[in-house]
């Protein structure tokens, strides 16, 4: 009997089933568990129940959410923020976990650090108490965010109860145009299917435009799967994936690596694998994108105008559009390229890898920013390499600040905030009300587009400005 054709997701899911209840709930084995400072609730739960960490060797703690973007020579001034960083260190130490702390030479945003260190591998199940854990799906892993109670469950059992999600394949064929990046691609996807378009589904991204992406680009795409409501996003591993992994600190070495690669080559979806939903997009039709509202689903080509709620037939939806425009301080019909900005932020788990910084620097080289801005690399290794290439000097010569690695102004809890009422061109993943600070206005875009906005002082089609 031939085996039923299976998708990449099916193969990873099936390989991790520990037990299945009659009602369909599955107990999944978890291969990697990443923790950040927000894990204190979960440690409190297992400590209260006097439960040890079941697999410390598969559990990694990373300081990223609260770490300062400015000089780390002095202690963190705010005692509550300092406490978050030291509490993670104490919890990791007490349970014998590898801890990438503030002064670790590998420190960085967990979703940048783990792939960089070779901790993220194809075929793994990966969880973290952070919704952007979907990032790691770029390697063909099944990776998703969980809440504090589930974090405590994984700490105690190295498993998680889950209901098998549905599957959706998003195929993007063709070639992306000049200055159109992975960020524009995923913004176009979210604009097309909506912020809940993939709810309850695991997405597999496929097609020639996805295959052509670097690992950095694939990480950006999978990162924002959650902004389409997806449980996870995955991309089949290939030679691009294997050559990225080979030689990294925690990756398998020698014969073990070869054996792993042989297994990883069996993971891509079988030719006749079935998906619950199929969506297709043409890469060539994707333009540099920006968002106009307070949901990532408001992504549109930068050449568009602010939409008019008056043209919306559903009164509830029209009211919601007006509320977003009011928050964003935008008038219907305004061309997006005429919208002036107050600052830029280049960073986050979406866009703080070397390729992102190179793209931003290519636009900024030899130019001055019209507005203040902050560039925060995703990790210490990214920062070092960027400095070796002189990218930091491009940013500072343009008048932007060059920061230390962490989540920074994406979530604003280390103190890096967009002031109330200010408009920020941001390479992050969320434009929610108050996300970058109370009453801050966020426009999401690619690093090249944020750099172009910095140069002109307003939202700008980077294709008109060009790179240097």
């Amino acid at each position: 009997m031939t085996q039923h054709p299976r998708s990449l997701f099916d193969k990873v899911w099936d390989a991790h089933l520990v037990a299945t209840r009659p009602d369909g709930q599955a107990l999944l084995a978890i291969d990697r568990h990443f923790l950040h400072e927000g894990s204190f609730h979960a440690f409190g739960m297992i400590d209260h129940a006097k439960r040890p960490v079941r697999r410390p060797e598969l559990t990694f703690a990373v300081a990223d959410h609260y770490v300062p973007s400015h000089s780390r020579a002095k202690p963190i001034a705010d005692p509550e923020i300092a406490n978050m960083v030291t509490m993670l260190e104490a919890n990791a130490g007490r349970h014998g976990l590898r801890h990438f702390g503030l002064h670790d030479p590998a420190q960085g945003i967990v979703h940048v650090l783990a792939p960089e260190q070779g901790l993220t591998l194809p075929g793994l199940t990966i969880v973290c108490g952070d919704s952007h854990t979907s990032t790691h799906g770029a390697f063909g892993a099944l990776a998703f965010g969980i809440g504090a109670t589930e974090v405590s469950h994984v700490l105690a059992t190295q498993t998680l109860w889950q209901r098998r999600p549905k599957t959706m394949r998003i195929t993007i064929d063709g070639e992306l145009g000049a200055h159109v990046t992975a960020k524009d691609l995923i913004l176009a996807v979210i604009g097309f299917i909506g912020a809940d378009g993939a709810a309850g589904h695991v997405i597999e991204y496929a097609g020639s435009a996805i295959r052509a992406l670097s690992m950095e680009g694939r990480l950006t795409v999978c990162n924002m799967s959650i902004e389409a409501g997806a449980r996870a996003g995955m991309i089949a591993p290939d030679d691009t994936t294997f050559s990225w992994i080979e030689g990294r600190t925690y990756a398998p070495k020698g014969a073990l690596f070869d054996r792993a690669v042989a297994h990883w080559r069996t993971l891509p979806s079988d030719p006749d694998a079935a998906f619950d939903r199929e969506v297709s997009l043409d890469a060539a039709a994707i333009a540099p994108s920006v968002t106009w509202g307070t949901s990532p689903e408001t992504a549109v080509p930068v050449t568009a105008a602010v939409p008019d709620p008056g043209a919306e037939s559903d009164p509830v939806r029209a009211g919601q559009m007006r509320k977003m425009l009011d928050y964003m301080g935008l008038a219907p019909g305004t061309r997006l390229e005429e919208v002036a900005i107050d600052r830029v932020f280049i960073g986050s788990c979406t866009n703080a890898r070397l390729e992102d910084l190179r793209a931003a620097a290519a636009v900024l080289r030899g130019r001055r920013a019209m507005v203040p801005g902050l560039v925060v690399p995703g990790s210490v290794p990214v920062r070092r390499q960027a400095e070796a290439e002189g990218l930091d000097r491009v940013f500072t010569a343009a008048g932007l600040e060059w920061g230390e690695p962490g989540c920074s102004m994406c979530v604003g809890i280390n103190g890096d905030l967009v002031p109330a009422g200010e408009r920020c061109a941001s390479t992050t993943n969320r434009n929610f009300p108050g996300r970058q600070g109370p009453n801050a206005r966020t426009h999401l875009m690619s690093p090249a587009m944020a750099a172009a906005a910095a140069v002109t002082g307003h939202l700008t089609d980077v294709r008109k400005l060009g790179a240097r």
Partner: protein
Amino acid sequence: MDPFVTLTAPAVPLDIANIDTDQLLPARFLKKPRSAGYGNFLFHDERKPGFPLDDPAYAGARVLVSDRNFGCGSSREGAVYALVDGGFRCVVAPSFGDIFAANAAKNGLLTIALPEATVADLRRQLQETPGAAVTVDLPAQTLTGPDGQPLPFAIDPFKKECLIEGLDDVALTLRHQDAIDAFDRADAEARPWLVPGA
């Protein structure tokens, strides 16, 4: 956690789609210990004049009726703590963020997904008769709005059992200890590269 069986309480309508967990609990409160309660942080930055949760007509609401994609965004369980500590036991919406819905169930907060038109009608009834109560019967899987019409809803049987019994699922999982141990032994053979640096 507190078991959830039935509830009759006032419900408050919130005509906003895509309510994300940053709105439910602004990030600057994430570093607060739970012991002091998260109720005062709920929708902290949305509390402007006219916000339904501050309308005295909806005082004592324990059910929130909102729009699609409720609880999208960040995985912060604090968003659920803020709702629970703010007195809520149930949220009704056309759809939910997956992580939010999972977190809610772990904390005794019932999430009920109903068709978009049904939820819109329920919000309209609550706007027309502010302070009206709704009744949730979890064992029967019905929600009865102000018009007295019982609306059947679907729920995952596992989630239902955990909510009704207030189960701690670590204890439940540890009943599968032998299966977990057997899985780990077989897996160590099949994927010797699993443990980093081993």
